[in-house]
């Protein structure tokens, strides 16, 4: 009973992340949770922490894994990028966690990356990102650009007949890289440079009048126009409000967003936004029993009847289950053994299919396009016929199109150049 007591104590004191020095063979498996609970990103990341706690609780109720319980260790990197690295070091070196689930922004992941590689940890990263990275120690359960941006652009081009493109984004690495990929992709498809407008705004931008008016003018040139939005965080709320106020209807100029999910929409009146689009790999409205069960569990766990689920939550759900399966398969929570065992592991996702961990540490995902509804939910209007495997290195950037990643032996390389036949060595190389 003493172990159970320990776990209970640990759970109740997790905010303080008190560690226990049990010496028994059946130590709990320690799961580090590295999500901001304060600062600007708390809005998105704090729900992911709760998701992880819920998943761990459920797993423990079901008997844990290999007869061992799971113990969450929560730290707060406070939306402060350098602090992410410090907290990751604390988790790996001091708390000696077996695995970390965490990060949201790319810049925080980049800051954690060297620490996780140096101390040989495991990191599950649940958010859609710009790609151009593959690390031995990181598992990317969110979408790579080919699992979100490219299919969305294809949909607009082929199904809606869009000819003019506005690429609007927040000024940081994910939108800039994604837009670079999209720009090359569109030009490859024969879109003229005049028909592409690119715009960047700072984090938390709130004065959208001139930009929205520009988009309106740009869209009135007689060709069907769409906005591809990589605007991140709470800047979306005033952006959509301005769209509504200036009367930009989804039927005239649809906006397809890559960073707006159920969580972000729960902060606005979606009446004027009906019909605008988002591309994700999961929507809360997906009609599937596994999804309904997940929602029920989430509502019960949070005690909030209005609680919403979103794509990064599903990514953690998949990542967590993959980790459990890999530990079972390896028969141990040893990092190197799990790293080998997890490649090829398949677990059910919440949209009625399966997600498989690929050798490049990305997973297979379906791509869904949804239209915003007046209740803050999305209605799926298009989906890929089958799942798409994540591509670590984009085929549309000059520096990366020859690179592949395969973490199986004998190749065991994150950036193998198929033309020169050499491995770049480090986990990242500059794309330019």
């Amino acid at each position, binding site marked *: 009973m003493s172990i159970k007591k320990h776990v209970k104590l640990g759970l109740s004191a997790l905010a303080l992340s008190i560690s226990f020095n049990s010496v028994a063979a059946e130590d709990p498996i320690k799961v580090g949770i590295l999500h901001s*609970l*304060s600062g*600007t990103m*708390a*809005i998105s990341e*704090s729900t992911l922490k709760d998701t992880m706690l819920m998943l761990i609780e459920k797993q423990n109720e079901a008997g844990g894994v290999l007869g061992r319980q799971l113990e969450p260790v929560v730290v707060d990197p406070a939306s402060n990028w350098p602090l992410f690295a410090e907290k990751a070091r604390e988790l790996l070196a001091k708390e000696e966690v077996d695995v970390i689930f965490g990060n949201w922004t790319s810049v925080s992941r980049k800051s954690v990356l060297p620490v996780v590689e140096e101390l040989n940890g495991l990191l599950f990263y649940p958010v859609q990102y710009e790609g151009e990275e593959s690390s031995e120690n990181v598992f990317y359960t969110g979408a790579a650009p080919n699992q979100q941006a490219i299919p969305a652009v294809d949909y607009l081009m082929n199904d*809606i007949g869009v000819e003019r493109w506005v690429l609007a984004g927040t*000024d940081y690495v994910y939108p800039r890289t994604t837009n670079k990929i999209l720009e090359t992709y569109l030009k490859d498809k024969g879109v003229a440079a005049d028909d592409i407008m690119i*715009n*960047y*705004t*700072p984090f*938390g*931008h*709130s*004065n959208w*009048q*001139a*930009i929205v*008016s*520009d988009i309106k*003018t740009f869209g*009135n*040139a*007689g060709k069907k126009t769409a906005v591809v939005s990589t605007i991140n965080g*709470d800047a979306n*709320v*005033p952006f959509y*409000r*301005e769209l*509504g*106020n*200036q*009367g930009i209807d*989804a*039927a005239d100029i*649809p906006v397809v967003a890559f960073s707006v999910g159920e969580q972000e929409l*729960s*902060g*606005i*009146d979606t009446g*004027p936004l*009906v*019909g605008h689009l988002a591309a994700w790999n999961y929507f809360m409205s997906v*009609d599937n*029993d596994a999804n*309904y069960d997940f*929602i*029920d569990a989430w*509502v019960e766990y949070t005690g909030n*009847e*209005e609680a919403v689920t979103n794509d990064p939550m599903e990514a953690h759900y998949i990542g967590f289950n993959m980790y459990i399966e890999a530990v079972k398969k390896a028969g141990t929570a040893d990092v190197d053994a799990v790293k080998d065992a997890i490649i090829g592991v398949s677990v059910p996702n919440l949209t009625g299919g399966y997600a498989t961990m690929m050798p490049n540490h990305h997973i297979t995902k379906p791509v869904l396009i949804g*239209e915003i*509804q*007046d*209740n803050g*939910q999305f*209605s*799926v*209007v298009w989906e890929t016929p089958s799942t798409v495997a994540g591509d670590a290195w984009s085929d549309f950037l000059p520096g990366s199109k020859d690179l592949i990643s395969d973490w199986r032996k004998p190749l065991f390389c994150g950036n193998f150049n198929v033309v020169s036949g050499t491995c770049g060595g480090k986990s990242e190389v500059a794309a330019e």
Partner: protein
Amino acid sequence: MGIYRLLSHLLLACCLLWPGLALAQVEDTEAQQLLTALADSSFSEKKTVINRIAGSGDDRARYWLESFGANKLGRIEDSGQFIIVLSNRGRNWTVEDALTKENLGEISRRDIDTIRVNNALRNELEGILSVIDLKSPNEDQRLSAARALKGSVSGTLAERLPTLIDEEQSADVQAALTEALAIYQVEEQGDITAVATLSGSLNSEARAALQQAMRSDDPALAAAATKAMESIEQKLKLNRAAETLYFGLSLGSVLVLAAIGLAITFGVMGVINMAHGELIMLGAYTTWGMQQLLPGQPGLALMLSIPAGFLVSALAGIAIERTVIQHLKGRPLETLLATFGVSLILQQLVRTVISPLNRTVITPDWMSGSVMINEALSLTLNRLYVIGFALVVFAGLMLIMRKTRLGLDVRAVTQNRAMARSMGIKATKVDILTFGLGSGVAGLAGVALSQITNVGPNLGQSYIIDSFMVVVFGGVGNLWGTLLAGLSLGTINQLLEPWAGAVLAKILVLVLIILFIQKRPRGLFPQKGRAAEG
């Protein structure tokens, strides 16, 4: 039994005599069939089905189509019964029967299949509904229907339009319909006489039609279209300039609102209050709190938030003044650090007590949307109200400072504290009231900002730098300077933004101010005479 048979025959006869009556409601089996066809077909097939439903003559057709467009038409998974969703929030939805309109109570979302709709279909629906609306007795409804038709007139409708135009009573609706018809004629038939109708039109569909005509092979048509476009371009340029000015004024009035409280505490009293942004945040949260207290009445809550927001922030400001600032009089560096600490405390307080997540503040209906000046220029209403509000607050403050006893005392104390005290003015009391006034105005700014930006713990941070910028640029201690500085900085920013981008525009404005301060260290309107320090 004979009588019943006779009656039923009579009824049958009536139905045959008035086919309209008989068709008013199609048989339920047929309705079921139509809706089943809608539910089971692909997006492209649904288009024909909705036209069939619209053509069925059933008086419930509009109700079905509207519900379908709003994604509210669904089917119960097991029984196949068609339903209309009345409330689609949470896990259980309130529904009614689509055929009988009988309320069926709450049903779990798991058991409902909503019939999916997309933008293309919604567009098609809008077209169908606006054709129906053209016959509506309500003039506004006819007008908006006629406007919606611009650019989406079909061949069959184009044939009927001339008679519809003739029969139309309202001149506005007539003009809109004529333009809609002309767009169709230019676009589809290359009709050169219709080009004249479009000349001077600011409608974007009309421009698209003209642009297409400009590329036409017929030189006469292309020339006429080019000429029409030139006059439009001229008009558009004017409208765009007016729009930029409006954007500048609206951003400027936000800056003025945020800075004017600071103009009192920093400008007049000389206290560097880094927690000023958090006082704005408190005002915004008061609006949110009011709306929570008065659910369903966002407009009333917003009006009540004006005095409430003032009070909350004023009290918070007075508390800060009493506990921190008064002990640090004349030590600006310490004041700066201490108030910065206070600002962090207030932020974290809101995070822990309320939530780290942004709160939804509802915009009342009368503040949503825009007023249309013409088809190329519309002014967004929420911004218009904020401009008005900023001017009212400014005028109010001016009155207080110039015409009241408090204003006189404040001016006296700031100009020469010792002298004022010897004249019997209670300097401490004046300090408290002045700081309360400045803080309260910050609260008012928060109430206004809750309508145009996110209400969250970080709200204040995004405005504190801008506020100091405006006050310094305008000249410390001068309210007129703050007004002019805010409005001009807003306008400059909006002028730069289209060609420099939002990030660079901000930087440029900052560089501009630095250069300006080098030249004139005391801002636009420096204080002169004895009031000026040292």
